[in-house]
Structure formats: C-alpha cells, structure tokens
C-alpha cells in the first residue's frame, strides 16, 4: 500500500544523522520533525533566519515575531541563533546546512526539479525554493509519485518551469525510495505492499531497480 504523508516523513527522518543541520520545506517536509529518531540530535534551520527551530508554542504563548518560513508561529530552543535572511541563505550556499528536504511537482531523472510555477495558473513566486535547490549540498524530495490523474511525476525531463538543475539527490515518494544517480532513478526501497511492477509502471524517468532493493522498514 502506498505510504501516506506521515509515512513519507517518517522514512525521510531515517536519513537524519546525529549533528545534522537540516532545512525542512513546507508540507510533508515539515512533518519530518515529528519523527526524528531517538538519540539523533539535529538542528532545524528556518530560512527566514533561525537555527534551532523548536515546536509550536503552547496556546496563548504565540509571538508574532517568532515564525518559521511557512509563517507558522514557532519557538526557539536552548542554543538557537537568529540572523538576517542574507546570512540564512549564505550558510546554505556555503554548504553548512547538511540536508534540505522539500516538496516537488516534478523531478527529472538527472535531478532537475520543478516546484514553483504552473503555466496558466497564478504564480505566487519561488520564495526561497530556487536558493535552496541551487545551493543546498544534499536535497531529498518528498512527493507523491504520480499526480491525481495517475501521471508519473518522476520524469525523463521536467515539463514545468525548472526550479533548479541536477540538484535532487534522493526522492522519497509514496511508492518507494529512489536515489538520483548518473544512471537516473535507482529504486532502493519499495513501500510495504507496493510491487516493483507498479513502481516501474508509474515511473516515466529512467529507472533501475537496485540489486539489493528491499521493502521499506520503519
């Protein structure tokens, strides 16, 4: 059975290593914070200007001055640091943030990503997405494998306007885990109950099944 959003987040959380600085995008990526493995300490970065993002505040303790990049009220933690938006993207560009997790509309088998604009629809802007995908040293995409009509979102090339080139390192979809390699997508795990045949059928981009492919374990 394909993963739900929480399961996608939970699987991505397994990629976190102790001591990582991590930027979590809006949507499924935000949920990753709920599944950080025990004993793994990570520091969450919010690109509007915070290292050490804490949980939502208790009711009544919200502070309009303390929000994350999704404009949600949040808190700090002991050891947090605040800074301006130039330093925030500066540390990402300089490779100091170990991992960025974000959503996508499309990913190509060379790592290109499209996630900011649909021609013909109102364009809201790229926000920090173009900076993050261009500059982050390790990018995992959390996404649905297909659109509502069943069309693959893992493609030979993006059909939507590009957000960044050759930047995605790994995709965790509702169907499995895919490394992005010089040979395209390599399926290294499949969701419990999902077949390799289904993954093949629903992946339009170049796809290889890893020799040691295995069922995902939570």
């Amino acid at each position, binding site marked *: 059975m394909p993963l739900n959003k929480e399961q996608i987040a939970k699987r991505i959380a397994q990629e976190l290593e102790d001591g990582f600085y991590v930027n979590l995008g809006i949507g499924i990526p935000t949920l990753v914070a709920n599944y950080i493995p025990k004993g793994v300490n990570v520091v969450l970065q919010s690109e509007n200007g915070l290292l050490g993002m804490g949980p939502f505040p208790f009711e009544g303790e919200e502070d309009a001055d303390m929000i994350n990049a999704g404009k949600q009220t949040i808190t700090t933690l002991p050891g947090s640091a*605040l800074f*301006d938006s*130039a330093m925030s993207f500066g540390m990402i560009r300089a490779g100091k943030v170990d991992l960025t997790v974000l959503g996508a509309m499309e990913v190509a088998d060379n790592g290109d990503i499209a996630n900011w604009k649909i021609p013909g629809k109102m364009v809201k*802007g790229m926000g920090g997405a173009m900076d993050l995908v*261009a500059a982050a040293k390790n990018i995992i995409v959390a996404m649905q494998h297909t659109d509502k009509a069943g069309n693959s979102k893992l493609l030979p090339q993006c059909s939507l306007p590009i957000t960044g*080139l050759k930047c995605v390192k790994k995709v965790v979809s509702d169907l499995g885990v895919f490394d992005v390699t010089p040979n395209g997508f390599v399926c290294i795990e499949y969701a419990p109950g999902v077949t390799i045949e289904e993954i093949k059928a629903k992946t339009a981009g170049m796809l290889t099944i890893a020799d040691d492919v295995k069922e995902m374990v939570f």
Partner: protein
Amino acid sequence: MNKVVANAEEAIKDIESGATLMLGGFGLCGIPENCITAIVKKGINNLTCISNNAGVDDFGIGLMLQTKQVKKMISSYVGENAEFERQLLSGELEVELIPQGTLATRCMASGYGMPAVYLLAGVGTEVANGKETRNFNGKDYLMEYAFDADFAIVKAWKGDTMGNLIFKDTARNFNPLMAMAGKITIAEVEELVQPGDLDPNFIHTPGVYVHRIFQGVNYEKRIEQRTTRKPQA
C-alpha cells in the same frame, strides 16, 4: 546626530509618487506598520515596492494594493492576497519575482558597497534570462547586481536616537539588510531609547545606515498562521 522625527507622517513626508521603496518584513512579521498606514493616508501612487511579500488583503502592503498605490512589486513570494491576484491578472500591477536569498543578498551587497555578486539561485531557470552566467570551480553562478531604493522603510524592536537598531526574533529577516540599502533609510521602532541604552556589542544595524527614526504606535503585529500545541497532560 539626532535622527528622531515625530511620527510616520513626518518620516515619509518627502516620499513622492513614483518612488521606489524597500519595505522590511517576512510575511506580516516585522513589517513597518506605521509607515504603511501613513503611505496609505498620504495617497501617493505609482510606487515600486521591494519587499519579500505583498502582505494579505487587509494588512501590510495589501493595504497599499487596495488603494492602488503600487505600480510594481518586486518580491519572492506573493501568495495569499486576492486583490493582488486580481490586479496582476488585469494587468494593473507589474510583478518581478526574485529568489528570496538573492533578494536578501542584493540588499546586503548595496550596504557593503559591492556592485555585484555571484549567486547560485536560479541558474538554468527563467530567472537566469538576460543575466550573465559565470563558472567558478565547476559550478555556474548568476551575476546579480546590488539593489537599492529611494527609501528603505524598516521596523525594529528598539532603536536609539542616533539610529542604532536591534531586532527581535525572526522579525529581523530583511529589515537590517534593507536598512543598509536605502538612499534614505527610515526606521520605526517599538521602543525609542537614548544613546547608551543599547549595548554597543549587540547592535544589529549601526546608526550610520539610518537617516530617520521614530517610535511607532499601536502595533497590531498580526499573526498569519497561528499554530500552537496543547499543553502536555
């Protein structure tokens, strides 16, 4: 060296129609509420506004959109604003979208006297159109120009009469960067203090960058996404 003006009306009194303004803030966080109100009241128009976002329908820069004072928005993200969308689709409003980190860094470049910097964001995308691309150490970068404005309007937590500013929490965001990038920089503060009241070790914006300062009033500080958790049992 006293840079204090009485209020927002006085601070913005020489801003004329057609001016280019930078407005600090991220979403509704850390926005110069008093100056926005005064600009709406003054009724100037044809403004070019550089701000990361465009407010919501009834708050922030959204108020200036309601009164059709804005000719062009330069932002990274402009969602959550129906009037904005209407004006954009009808062609009344121009929009230029810039990646968030590029917007921030171009303001900083201005404050540091660097005419251009090389940044990664947007390589290979439509943002790169017309821009010089250059390879350093095997990676392509876009040349981005420093960004200034006739007036930079920022909101700080505290400031002293010499223009030194400190910001609180994530309300810092673009404010200190834009404060460096204004030909004239106007700062509204929640608390105006005397020289010596702020620790010189912890000034975010040195007064040299600030031309006018005043104590703001009636801050609403609206929250866009109120997210909370329940107390644990």
